[in-house]
């Protein structure tokens, strides 16, 4: 098992694996999205307090979850990279960041569109909202930092440190609704208390959550392949790839 993990830690072996895996994750994401949207938009009942407006939950909560999960994944890769000095780690971090940034933005955007009709404000400087905004800036900072440093190994190190330090913000976001008196409602799903929602609503939200998760994995795997290609372009195995050979012939003619 460990040996297999180390085998795929090399970009040369991970490239074809990612190529095989991303379509499966993309397919899962598509199927789950259709199912989740059907449940959420056509089966789940109207909320007794928020009417139909609550349906924003089916994109807001999954996007917010993923914005945190992706950052934790980046911190995990950063830790691996900084301790074992594996090349793939930095590439994974960079492949994850844009998707994470998009989800963080979507969390804020859908939150604003939900806040306006329910609270009467697009935005409040509340602990939950502010810590999520910081997360969005951390993503942008990571992307800016890693692309500003020319030497990829140094860029990976700098980015890794930012990812690790910034990860401290994730539990702050998660527990903000408990730690501070916020306008944002508490967790809809809690490991200790169970759920406070109707069964179908909860199911639709969880399915959308898994769908977004699968989407994020598909995107990261697809993106990391392009990063591997460019980073490893001087390696013989890249030159031997059929897609590279085909492109080389195209350039020559």
């Amino acid at each position, binding site marked *: 098992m460990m040996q297999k993990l180390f085998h795929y830690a090399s970009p040369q072996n991970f490239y074809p694996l990612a190529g095989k895996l991303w379509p499966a994750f993309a397919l899962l994401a598509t199927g789950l999205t259709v199912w989740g949207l059907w449940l959420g*938009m*056509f*089966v*789940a*009942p*109207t909320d007794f307090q928020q*009417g*139909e*407006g609550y*349906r*924003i939950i089916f*994109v*807001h909560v999954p*996007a917010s979850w993923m914005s945190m999960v992706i950052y934790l994944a980046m911190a995990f890769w950063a830790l691996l990279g900084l301790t074992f000095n594996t090349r793939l780690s930095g590439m994974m971090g960079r492949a994850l960041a*844009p*998707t994470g940034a*998009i989800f963080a*933005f*979507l969390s804020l*955007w*859908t939150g604003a*569109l*939900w806040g*306006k*009709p329910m609270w009467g404000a697009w935005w409040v400087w509340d602990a939950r909202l502010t810590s999520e905004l910081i997360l969005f800036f951390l993503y942008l900072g990571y992307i800016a930092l890693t692309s500003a440093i020319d030497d990829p190994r140094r860029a990976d190190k700098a980015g890794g440190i930012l990812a690790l330090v910034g990860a401290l913000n994730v539990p702050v976001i998660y527990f903000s609704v408990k730690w501070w008196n916020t306008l944002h409602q508490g967790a809809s799903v809690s490991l200790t208390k169970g759920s406070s929602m109707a069964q179908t609503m909860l199911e639709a939200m969880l399915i959308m959550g898994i769908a977004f998760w699968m*989407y994020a994995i598909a*995107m990261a795997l*697809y*993106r990391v*392949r*392009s*990063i591997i*290609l*460019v980073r490893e*372009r001087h390696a013989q195995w*890249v*030159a031997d790839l059929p*897609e*590279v050979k085909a*492109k*080389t012939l*195209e*350039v*020559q003619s």
Partner: protein
Amino acid sequence: MIWNSWSDFWAMGGYGVYVWGSFGVTAALMLIEMVWVKQARTKALAHVAQELVAAQTQGKDWQG
């Protein structure tokens, strides 16, 4: 099925702008990201191929 008609569905009980504004932008950003990663791959392949071709022609120059 909980809706009486399609116009009922699109109206979302008066929250249409907020609900569809959320779902629309989410879908749009995801679609943009898909196009984006596809373009990045095309660019990466072109970049690698161009360097390989350049290296080959340089190699020939040295031999010649």
